[in-house]
């Protein structure tokens, strides 16, 4: 029977072969996409693991390494290690200063040995920057000679900017931030616990969030697609099985043949799908899931995923074929459905309404975010539960909404294409919606994230409005142990070199007020009323006037008490930005000011890259602090790095899931067309223009896609609004035009995919189809 099944599939005539090819192609595309998704998810984890060596020196990585990690360091001479963050044209450079204390000092990955004093290794992209930019803007920050490039083992991405600089132990040991280490960390940032390198990789919560969102939004649509592909042409096969029953085949024999046919197509499809995936790998590597592209060799599914796909898809296909046969009764006289699928009812909308009601209750009635006694775990559970209820409610209500929309269109359609498409959708709304149900999740998750992130990031938008100040003002905060070495006087080289740098407009040195700070009693306040303390920092008014980003002094003042906030550098303070603020005068004279310890050095420039980078190089040489001087834009970008990564993920998810849905829709529609081509081909014989039939297919595919996208977007914005209202008391802000462009691009790509299948219609509905059916 198995041999007969194989022969029927391969040598069963043109129709059998066409059917086999159709299923094979669909399964191959599905498996290719499935492997690409799994590989993408795995690549995110692998990329994050490549940050591990940068956790060296942080206790959080030691804790994760455990006793085994510590045991291997016996007999190893330590290395002086200091990690710093540097910047160039808005991009972060990871700088590691090292000094070996002996020949057995541990070596980080990607280099053969620790660089000797006066030598350094740099990543290929950084080498390119060093070679193409003036030395004063970048190269001068790194003492010594380039002796090689960092290998891929040390780089999270081909675009990573990293440098490892060798020093003498005597030089580095004086640095308060340098640590003496006996082992290079192998703990990925996601497994680091507690004291971890700031701004390095993605932590455990972030990684779980990224993987969960990507899995839900990408894997689900792809699995739906693979499922649809394996069920293609099922009813045509069932009709043939009736003929076999007529000549005496038993139900079991028919089931075996059906299983063989499905499995054969699935096996060939899986093989081609693997080849498709291998061909797509370089392209997948370019997709910046979290902001940086991948190495192609990182884009590989985990071994378990590979086995599950290779074995699971054919098995699932065989099981699906068996289950499909159980839903129909194949008698020798024909095929009958055992159960007619009931049309979806309005009850399906209940979970969706319940989810919205829950979020609405906590946003507007209970005000859970404002209740200080509510614990955050409960808050998280409440909101996650509500959002999940809305998401699943949308998927459950989808077929009913599709039925409603198609019925509405069908009862009003004046054009035959709209009438046919709407009636076909109304006939089986479950099938129409199934193909796009993955999009519901992708667009919902992406839009919700974009809505929340846009609102949280809203002050940054204002900072862009302020314009050049944010990108042209360099801030060097001398915090922590660095301040002990700073003293009260600015090195002469700093003022001399900055004065000589074209584009530098001024320099402001912000100093710490002596303790206790003076009291400020508001005028007219009763005795014993609230007393304010003056701001902790002070600045010279002569300097402040050359750095407009920080604000201004009151007229006639020589010094001002200042309370700068670089994180939200231009965040609104009483509806004014810092640049618009007039600071109160300080009681200190200019001469007393110069005796106070320096807290921050701020350099104003004309925002040209040359001026900013040259000034940064000067400050870096004077103050080799943990973080190099940053522009206000860079500080803000750093602080919203994770949010931007999530926004990037949301964009990727939307952009990729929509074309996947397009493929899924196309396959299901082509499959439906192949199964029921006779009425279409007879319509064409009777003179119906091919363009009309194309419009039917186009509308049938596009309508659920656009309706679903619109419903998902509306509900995601509503959920985001309820979340923001409850948690932050904020109202949702309109996303940037980029979001709408991403949605439009995704829908456009999906329509292109759908359009690519339309030429099949000419062949499927030609005279031969009607004659031979």
């Amino acid at each position, binding site marked *: 029977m198995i041999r007969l099944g194989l022969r029927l599939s391969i040598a069963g005539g043109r129709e059998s072969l066409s059917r086999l090819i159709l299923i094979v192609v669909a399964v191959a595309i599905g498996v290719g996409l499935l492997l690409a998704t799994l590989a993408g998810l795995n690549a995110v984890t692998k990329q994050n693991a490549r940050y591990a060596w940068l956790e060296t020196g942080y206790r959080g990585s030691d804790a994760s390494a455990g006793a085994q990690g510590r045991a291997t360091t016996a007999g190893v001479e330590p290395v002086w290690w200091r990690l710093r963050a540097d910047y160039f044209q808005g991009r972060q450079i990871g700088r590691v200063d090292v000094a070996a204390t002996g020949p057995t000092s541990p070596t980080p990955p990607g280099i053969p040995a620790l660089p000797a004093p006066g030598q350094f290794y740099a990543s290929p992209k950084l080498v390119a920057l060093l070679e193409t930019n003036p030395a004063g803007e970048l190269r001068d920050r790194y003492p010594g000679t380039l002796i090689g490039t960092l290998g891929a083992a040390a780089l999270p991405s081909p675009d990573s900017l990293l440098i490892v600089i060798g020093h003498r132990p005597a030089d580095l040991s004086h640095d308060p931030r340098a640590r003496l280490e006996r082992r290079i960390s192998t703990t990925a940032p996601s497994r680091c616990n507690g004291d971890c390198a700031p701004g390095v990789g993605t932590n455990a919560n972030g990684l779980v969030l990224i993987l969960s969102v990507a899995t839900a939004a990408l894997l689900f649509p792809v699995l739906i697609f693979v499922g649809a592909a394996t069920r293609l042409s099922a009813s045509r096969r069932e009709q043939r099985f009736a003929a076999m029953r007529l000549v005496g085949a038993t139900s079991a024999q028919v089931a075996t043949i059906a299983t063989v046919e499905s499995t054969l197509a699935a096996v060939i499809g899986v093989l081609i799908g693997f080849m498709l995936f291998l061909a797509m790998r370089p392209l997948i590597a370019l997709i910046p899931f979290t902001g940086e592209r991948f190495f192609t060799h990182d884009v590989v599914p985990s071994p378990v995923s590979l086995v599950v796909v290779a074995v699971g898809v054919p098995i699932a296909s065989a099981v699906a074929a068996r289950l499909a046969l159980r839903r129909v009764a194949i008698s020798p006289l024909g095929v009958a459905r055992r159960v007619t699928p009931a049309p979806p009812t309005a009850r399906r909308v209940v979970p969706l309404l319940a989810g919205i009601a829950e979020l609405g209750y906590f946003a507007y009635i209970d005000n859970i975010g404002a209740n200080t006694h509510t614990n955050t775990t409960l808050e998280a559970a409440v909101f996650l539960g509500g959002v999940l209820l809305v998401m699943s409610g949308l998927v459950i209500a989808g077929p009913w909404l599709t039925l409603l929309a198609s019925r509405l269109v069908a009862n009003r359609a004046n054009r035959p294409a709209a009438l*046919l498409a709407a009636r076909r959708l*109304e006939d089986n709304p479950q099938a129409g919606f199934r193909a796009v149900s993955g999009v519901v999740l992708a667009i919902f998750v992406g839009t919700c994230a974009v809505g929340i992130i846009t609102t949280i990031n809203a002050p940054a938008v204002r900072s862009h409005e302020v314009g050049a100040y944010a990108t042209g003002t360099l801030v060097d905060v001398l915090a922590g142990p660095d301040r002990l070495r700073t003293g009260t006087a600015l090195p002469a080289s700093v003022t001399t070199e900055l004065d000589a740098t074209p584009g530098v407009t001024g320099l402001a040195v912000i100093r710490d007020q002596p303790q206790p700070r003076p009291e400020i009693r508001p005028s007219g306040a009763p005795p014993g009323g609230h007393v304010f303390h003056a701001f902790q920092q002070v600045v010279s008014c002569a300097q402040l006037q050359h750095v407009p980003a920080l604000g201004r002094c009151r007229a006639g003042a020589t010094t001002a008490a200042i309370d700068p906030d670089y994180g939200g550098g231009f965040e609104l303070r009483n509806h004014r930005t810092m640049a618009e603020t007039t600071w109160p005068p300080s009681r200190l004279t200019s001469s007393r000011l110069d005796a106070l310890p320096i807290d921050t050095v701020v350099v104003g420039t004309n925002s040209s890259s040359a001026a900013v980078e040259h000034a940064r190089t000067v400050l870096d040489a004077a103050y080799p602090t943990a973080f190099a001087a940053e522009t206000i834009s860079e500080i803000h970008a750093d602080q919203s790095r994770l949010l931007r990564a999530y926004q990037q993920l949301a964009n990727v998810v939307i952009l990729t899931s929509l074309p996947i849905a397009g493929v899924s829709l196309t396959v299901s529609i082509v499959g439906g067309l192949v199964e029921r081509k006779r009425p279409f081909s007879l319509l064409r014989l009777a003179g119906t223009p091919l363009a009309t039939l194309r419009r039917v297919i186009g509308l049938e595919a596009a309508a659920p896609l656009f309706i679903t996208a619109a419903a998902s977007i509306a509900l995601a914005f509503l959920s985001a609004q309820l979340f923001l209202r409850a948690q932050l008391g904020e109202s949702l802000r309109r996303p940037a035009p980029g979001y709408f462009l991403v949605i439009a691009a995704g829908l456009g790509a999906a329509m292109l995919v759908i359009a690519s299948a339309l030429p099949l219609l000419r062949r499927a509905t030609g005279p031969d189809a009607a004659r031979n059916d």
Partner: protein
Amino acid sequence: MTARSPEHGSPGGELLQAHDLHLSFGATPALRGASVSVRQAEILAVMGPSGSGKSTLLHCLAGILTPAAGEVFFDGARLDTLPEAPRSALRRQYFGFVFQFGQLVPELTAEENIALPLLLNGLRRAAALTQAREWFARLDLEGLERRRSGELSGGEAQRVAVGRALVTRPRVLFADEPTGALDSLTSESVMDLLTTAARGAGTTIVLVTHEARVAAYADREVLVRDGAVTDRVIV
């Protein structure tokens, strides 16, 4: 593109003419020098055994297939040399079709199926449905307007197909084994309705059948054998 109605009649008042048609499917010849002519308002039965080429002849006369050699005229104008688009428009505007089975769009209601050719010709929905509903009484289908094809019997579905073929008042109706899937009683009912409605509207019918009882409704009968036509005048 809209088909141009042939303006001049052909010699002898013949509406459809085919001369020396040849057509093969791969290595299998289907038509070998077939010639036939059909007069205005005539009902012509094309008979012949299975595989003789009678359906292929019908498809060539209707402009569905293009013969490899030979000529087809409709109302004196050459049909077989027209490009696909005007041929489609011609079929939509001047021809009607009834096939053996499976011609109704299963997702549409019976009235929408009948209204479909009118919608395709650009009529508004309300007007198309009004015209379609007029056919239900004439076809003895009252009360079945909102049914779908799966909810109709074979005879009912075929009568809906007849209504759909005639609703545009075509000049020629091509019927390919229109009763092939029906029992004899239902066949008679369908043929009665088909021929009565066609005669009332002055519609020419080309009827392909292998059943003598069905052919008896025709004014004239031709026999197709091995891809060639033999005239057998019965009236």
